[in-house]
């Protein structure tokens, strides 16, 4: 059988234990895949891809051959998270979000954690995500981070770690929902047999979370997109459509008397809640970057006066700064008095002299990332870099140590993946989505991103990564 040749040695594989036996959660799926056989699997994979193409779930590549429209690569072999693992993960994520929210409230308010010297004040004030304009701000219901996409990875022993917190505009949830729809069409027999936890109600949770941000009865809600050229535009319009709310661009909005209105065929209409998918500093030319072409003048002031709710609140970027990230275990302990349920990946801060020395000497063994980089940019994977690249990166670090952190190269876990007509092992991570409204809701599963290039650890879609459906059983 074609799965038999699969090897997963010296690594944590999601489907097979180190002895080569399938894990309990994968038993049924493995048997089924084997009985289908390679040819049938390829056939179903092709039809799944065709469905994604018809649905227009694509992004555009610009290259030598002109424009090319591609679907986001999608692998039909699911990633399964056993329910007992999920229970503790869910708890851990709720704990983390709660603590981070208290942290944001504190540093833009009293600043107790700074006075108690748990975190150096200058680290906060030098973070590019820290916005002075937000000092003293009181967002509705005291919630700052409404939508989070936390990146999780397994280490070689199979333990989950938080790799980073995405507290600004995390993308990918639309792929989770579309992948699931396509998987249901592709493997109905698996869905009939297994008790896979549903994700289709995410947009309803999102909508009621947004409604929770205002006291207006029957509020007008909008998703704010930078526009059709943004790479996540598909997701913006998808979410607006599924929630049944407006999708607006900056030019559709106007602020008058500190209230936000949108331009409609019947004149101006007041907007009460905005789920913004646009960066903090591009939001408002009068409070932040005056050169923004996407912003709406005066919207921040309208927000401060409580005339419009924004999700996520501006200023949250300070908490997903990769330097601040290294303090999250302390943050959890400080505000909740609890031990973190999901640990961080060990992190070296180049702003600390001893860490800096270690990083410069050991860069060939480390992953170094810019504090505010995203999408696989502004980073170096030491073991994969040339001597020259390592030297060049060291200069960058020395020039601005505050801006860099380093972590050991994690041997991310793998999942069997269909490559051409063979099953091979590929590295994955996991991004669950968390909503903070009346309660905290964690979507069961999340986006599994897979590094499609053999041996690669980079899962970002902008770097050739794909995705898999993620199943939480039971």
């Amino acid at each position, binding site marked *: 059988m074609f799965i038999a040749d699969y090897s997963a040695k010296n690594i944590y594989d999601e489907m097979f234990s180190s002895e080569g036996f399938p894990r309990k959660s994968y038993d049924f799926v493995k048997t089924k895949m084997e009985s289908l056989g390679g040819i049938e699997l390829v056939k179903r994979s092709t039809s799944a891809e065709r469905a994604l193409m*018809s*649905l*227009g779930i694509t992004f555009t590549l610009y290259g030598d051959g002109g424009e090319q429209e591609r679907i986001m690569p999608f692998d039909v072999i699911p990633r399964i998270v056993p329910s007992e693992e999920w229970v503790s993960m869910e708890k851990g994520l709720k704990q983390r979000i709660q603590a981070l929210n208290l942290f944001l409230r504190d540093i833009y308010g009293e600043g107790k954690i700074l006075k108690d010297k748990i975190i150096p004040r200058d680290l906060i004030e030098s973070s590019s995500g820290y916005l002075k304009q937000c000092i003293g701000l009181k967002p509705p219901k005291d919630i700052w981070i409404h939508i989070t996409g936390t990146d999780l990875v397994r280490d070689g022993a199979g333990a989950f770690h938080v790799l980073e917190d995405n507290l600004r505009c995390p993308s990918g949830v639309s792929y989770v929902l579309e992948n699931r729809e396509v998987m249901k069409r592709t493997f109905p027999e698996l869905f009939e047999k297994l008790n896979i936890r549903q994700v289709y109600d995410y947009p309803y949770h999102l909508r009621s979370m947004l409604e929770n941000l205002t006291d207006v009865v029957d509020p007008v809600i909008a998703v704010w997109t930078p526009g059709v050229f943004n790479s996540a535009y598909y997701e913006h*319009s998808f979410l607006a459509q599924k929630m049944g709310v407006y999708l607006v*661009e900056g*030019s*559709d909005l106007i602020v008058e008397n500190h209230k936000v209105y949108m*331009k409609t*065929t*019947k004149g101006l209409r007041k907007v009460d809640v905005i789920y913004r998918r646009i960066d903090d500093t591009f939001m408002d030319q009068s409070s932040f970057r005056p050169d923004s072409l996407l912003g709406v003048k005066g919207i921040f002031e309208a927000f401060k006066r409580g005339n419009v709710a924004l999700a996520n609140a501006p200023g949250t970027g300070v908490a997903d700064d990769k330097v601040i990230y290294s303090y999250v275990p302390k943050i959890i302990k400080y505000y909740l008095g609890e031990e973190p349920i999901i640990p961080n990946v060990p992190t070296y801060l180049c702003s600390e002299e001893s860490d800096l020395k270690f990083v410069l000497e050991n860069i060939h063994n480390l992953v170094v990332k810019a504090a505010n980089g995203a999408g696989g940019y502004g980073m170096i994977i030491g073991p994969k870099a040339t001597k020259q690249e390592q030297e060049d990166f060291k200069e960058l670090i020395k020039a601005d140590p505050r801006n860099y952190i380093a972590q050991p190269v994690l041997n991310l876990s793998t999942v069997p993946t269909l490559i051409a007509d063979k099953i091979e092992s590929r590295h994955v991570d996991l991004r669950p989505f968390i909503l903070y409204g009346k309660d905290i809701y964690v979507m069961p599963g999340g986006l599994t991103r897979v590094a499609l290039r053999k041996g690669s650890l980079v899962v970002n879609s902008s770097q050739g990564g794909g995705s898999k459906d993620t199943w939480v059983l039971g």
Partner: protein
Amino acid sequence: MLSRVAESVFWMNRYIERAENYSRFIDVNHQLSLDLNEEVPNQWLPLVHTTGDIELFEKRYSSPSPVNVIRFMTFDEENPNSIFQCLSRARENARTIRENISTSMWEVLNEFYLFVKDYRKVYMESSALHGDTLSMGLSDFLSTVRKSCQSFYGCSDATISHDEVWNFSLLGRFLERADKTTRILDMKYFILLPSVQDVGSTLDLLQWLSLLKSASAHEMYNQKYKRVDPTDIAEFLILNETFPRSIFFCIQEMQEALEKISGIKEGLPRNLAQDATTVYLNRLRSENIKSIFDKGLHEYLDDIQIELNHIGSKIVERFFTN
């Protein structure tokens, strides 16, 4: 509804209606050319005149050969009105307003676009390989284009609320359709010019028939009139109150859509776009085909186009810019 969205809905429908009309124009002309025994000179040029893109055509092609005209109107990337470009733009508009239309509408349109795009690729490759081939699969292609437009309309009718989005769709569709009907009628003017001596001949009859077919009108016309007669055809396509491609019918639909959009009952102040359609509809009611022919059909059709442009600009002014 957002003004920007209304504008995109309007244009999405105009482009689809345009693609449908183009496919019919080309197909009918193609069939006609197969029916004619002798080579009729400049059989294809009137088609380009009809679309109003003659300048661009002459810039891009050296002769009005069938192959050139067909390529210009179907797949030419530089012609903003070719079927391929209409579909690309309709789809781009749909992409920016996806949250306002149903998934099945989007799927129909997206698959339609992918079909045209793939077909175009095959066509371009094979004409590069074998020299230009005119009729290979042309009728099938054009027929699929028409069917896809119809299924887009059917799908919108059945899967979105008949509220503002729907009414702006109708505005776009009927404004475009009225414009294309005037151009179909005008086609005869361009065909007739070089051959006045042929009036009443078999060729003349064939041409009038093909004109009816270009408007998908010949069956409905036959039910109402007993013979093929230029005056009757013009009357049918301009003044008929129940045929969905007549000028009268289109303006009436627009008037209704505008009324629903503004929701303003009689006796209250109305908007300019509504005023423009009502004034024009009343004028059509008072006209008859004899007076139109007395004035000169070609001149009259020019007049309608000016009127349609006027209505169009009032719609833009009232709803899309604020």
